[in-house]
């Protein structure tokens, strides 16, 4: 079995484990009624470790898995949001962010905040007006608390993701070359 395939299997198992924890322990971690979102954090870590493509793929599957356990929003809304967040994080990482562990919480905070806003905005555009029914103060609270949770959980989640993704195409690509925002910067021949 190739190392790439093994890495994919490990990442798949990590997503499975993450949704299990999210749906069982996530609600116990509510601070002022707001729960953390492990799935978007995984997408952000994938982008940071594997670049645009890995971020997009992992984000898509994380979102789709999360969608299976939601009831009020259509299937695909989280997949779309997390895919974009994962890809954007990966593009930033490949473009100009350096590989520093201290950067991960910062990126996790920003990425999570943007993901909440993006989820609500795309949802509203697609007719899911109930997402805004609880009011602006609730939205701000979700952004702040979820981002704070992302800062706390980002380092352990990134370490676990790094372990799962070792040997994957994305980590190899980022480990050897640095890419542009949506492409890759290759050494001159």
């Amino acid at each position, binding site marked *: 079995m190739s190392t790439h395939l093994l890495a994919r299997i490990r990442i798949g198992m990590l997503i499975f484990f993450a949704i299990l924890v999210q749906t069982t322990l996530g609600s116990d971690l509510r601070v002022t009624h707001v729960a953390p979102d492990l799935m978007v954090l995984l997408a952000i870590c994938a982008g940071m470790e594997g670049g645009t493509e890995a971020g997009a793929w992992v984000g898509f599957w994380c979102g789709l898995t*999360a969608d299976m356990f939601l*009831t009020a929003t259509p299937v695909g809304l989280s*997949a779309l949001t997390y895919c974009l967040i994962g890809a954007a994080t990966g593009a930033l990482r490949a473009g100009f962010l350096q590989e520093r562990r201290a950067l991960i919480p910062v990126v996790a905070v920003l990425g999570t905040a943007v993901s909440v806003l993006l989820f609500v905005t795309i949802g509203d555009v697609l007719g899911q007006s109930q997402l805004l029914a609880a009011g602006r103060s*609730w939205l701000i609270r979700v952004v702040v608390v979820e981002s704070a949770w992302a800062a706390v959980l980002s380092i352990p989640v990134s370490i676990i993701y790094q372990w799962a993704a070792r040997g994957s195409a994305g980590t190899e690509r980022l480990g050897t070359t640095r890419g542009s925002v949506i492409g890759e910067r290759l050494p001159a021949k």
Partner: protein
Amino acid sequence: MAVYRRSNRTRYVLAVLVLAALTLVTIDARSNGSGVLSDIRTKVSDVFSPLQRATHSTLQPIGNFLTGALDYGSLRSENQRLRNEVASLQQQSVESAAEQAAAQQVLAEQHLPFVGSIPTVTAAIIDNGSSNFETSVTIDKGTSSGVAAGQPVVDANGLVGSVLSAGSHTAVVVLLTDPTFAVGVQLPGSNIGTAEGIGMVDPMRVTVDSTSLAPPKVKVGQDLVTSGLNFEKFPPDIPVGRVTAASASPGQSEPDISLAPLVNLQQLSFVQVLMWAPES
């Protein structure tokens, strides 16, 4: 020196994933909760439920510890309140042990007094809802136990919500604070109102429906129960919430009423699903 090469593959992958997600959203939104994707959701929930149940019971001590750690202030006050309550109960028990025994017997026989003769199914919460934009929980009973969409769900304190969808071994219960939830309530003076959820942290909002009668005089602290009118989704007399505010704005005959649910939605463990349908 480095040269740049646009990665068509990355763009292609991203475009395909975005289109796939948009397609799924469109299909699911158009099917209005009754299509293939909803069936898949229900099936996934069913398949996943034993694992969720096992994980939930395994992680419960960690969850309780974390909940306690994150909610230390309110736990202290809750502890104090319970100490006072225990002291008060001990005093009462000394004074009227015989009366209490009789009352407990009656309570045990009647179980939930507001349920009456409606058959119930006891269910455990296996997923308290981890999303921040929907207020629902998943229970460990489904169609195989007689649970069906639309059935009311209660606990010892009153109305919890109603079954939104049911798989064979699990069901999703939408809580009464959800913005899509509405229930008819009895108001003073034979008035009828509708209590609607407006989010996880805010109290419910009650609008007065019957305008031909004199405006209801609602007092803060009063408990409101379901109206149980024809075509109403809930049987009558189930406690819904306690009035936290009732005031009429200038020039307005009907009061703005806020209602706090009687049920502690943050600490649901077991609920009763009422085997009840409007036509019965």
